[in-house]
C-alpha cells in the first residue's frame, strides 16, 4: 500500500497584506505634491527698447496709484485699499457689451518705496472684482459659476470680460 505523502503547507501569509497596502497608499498620498503653488498670475509685456506711448481715452482707464505709505488713489480720489473692488465692479460691468478695443484697462502704479504687500493687496482687489463680475455674468447667462462652466463657455466669458491689468513702472522717488 502506498502511503499518502503529506503535502507541506505552501501558503503565503496574507494577513499583513492590508497593512502593507495601507502603508504604500499613505506613502503615495503624502509624497505627491503637498504644497500647492497658489498665487496671482500675470503676464508681463514684452521688453521693447523704445516705448511708444499710445493715448488711451480716459473712460477706458482705471488708474490705481499706491504711494509709499500704502494710500490708494483711484482716478484722482483717495480711497481705502479695500474699496478698490467695489469701485471697479460697476465700471467692468458697464463695459461688458462693448467691443474688444473698448474694454476697461486697469493700470496699477506704485512708488519705488511702496511695500510689496500693499501692491499685492491692490492686485488682489482688482482680480477679485474681475472674478466676481465673471461669476455674476456666468450665473445670469449659463446658470452656473464661472469655474463650473465647460471650456468653450469659459472662453466666451473671458472674451466678454477680459482681465487687462497694466503695470506701470514706478516713478523715482522725488527728493
Amino acid at each position, binding site marked *: 500500500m502506498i502511503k499518502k505523502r503529506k503535502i507541506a503547507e505552501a501558503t503565503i501569509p496574507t494577513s499583513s497584506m492590508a*497593512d502593507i497596502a*495601507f*502603508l504604500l497608499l*499613505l*506613502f503615495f498620498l*503624502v*509624497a505627491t*505634491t*503637498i504644497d*500647492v*503653488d*497658489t*498665487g*496671482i*498670475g*500675470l*503676464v*508681463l*509685456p*514684452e*521688453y521693447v527698447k523704445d516705448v511708444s506711448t499710445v493715448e488711451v481715452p480716459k473712460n477706458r482707464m482705471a488708474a490705481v496709484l499706491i504711494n509709499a505709505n500704502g494710500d490708494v488713489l483711484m482716478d484722482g480720489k483717495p480711497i481705502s485699499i479695500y474699496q478698490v473692488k467695489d469701485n471697479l465692479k460697476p465700471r467692468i460691468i458697464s463695459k461688458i457689451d462693448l467691443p474688444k478695443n473698448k474694454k476697461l484697462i486697469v493700470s496699477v502704479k*506704485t*512708488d*519705488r*518705496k*511702496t*511695500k*510689496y*504687500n500693499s*501692491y*499685492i*493687496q491692490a*492686485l*488682489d482687489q482688482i*482680480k*477679485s472684482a*474681475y*472674478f466676481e463680475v465673471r461669476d455674476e455674468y456666468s450665473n445670469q447667462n449659463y446658470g452656473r459659476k464661472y469655474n463650473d462652466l465647460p471650456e468653450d463657455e469659459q472662453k466666451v466669458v473671458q472674451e466678454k470680460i477680459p482681465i487687462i491689468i497694466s*503695470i506701470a*513702472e*514706478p516713478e523715482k522717488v522725488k527728493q
Partner: protein
Amino acid sequence: MKFQKRRANTKQEIPTASMPDIVFMLLLFFMVTTTLREYDVMVHYKLPEAKAIEKIENKRLIQYVWVGAGNRIQINDSIVKLSEIEPLMYAKRQALPNVIISLRIDKGVDMGLVTDIQQELRKAYCLRINYSTTLKI
C-alpha cells in the same frame, strides 16, 4: 455573610498587536513630510495673503525666484545679484519655453526691487509670472 467581589470578568488588556504597524505608519509619515524640500531656501521670507488666487496646475513649468528680507535674491540654490537674473532666466527659458516664474517675495520688500526683477525677466522673455501668495481666510 460573605461578600462577593464584584468585578466584570472581561479582559483588561489593550490589544497591542497592531502597535508596530501604527508606529511604522507614523514613522513613515514623518519621514516623508519632513524631507521633501527641493531647494535649500536661504532667504527669509513671509508671503503676503490674498483672496483671488489661482493654482499653478503644471508643477514642472515652475521656476522659483525667492526674494527675502534684506533684498536677497535666490534662484535655484544660490544667492544671485540683480544683473545675474537675465542670463540665468534666459537659459531657463531655452530649456523650458513656457516657463512660469513663481515669485516668492517677502511682504516688506520695496516695489522698486520687484520692478527691477520684472524688468530683468522681461529682458529674458520670461513673461508668465505668478506672485506667490497664501490664501487669506
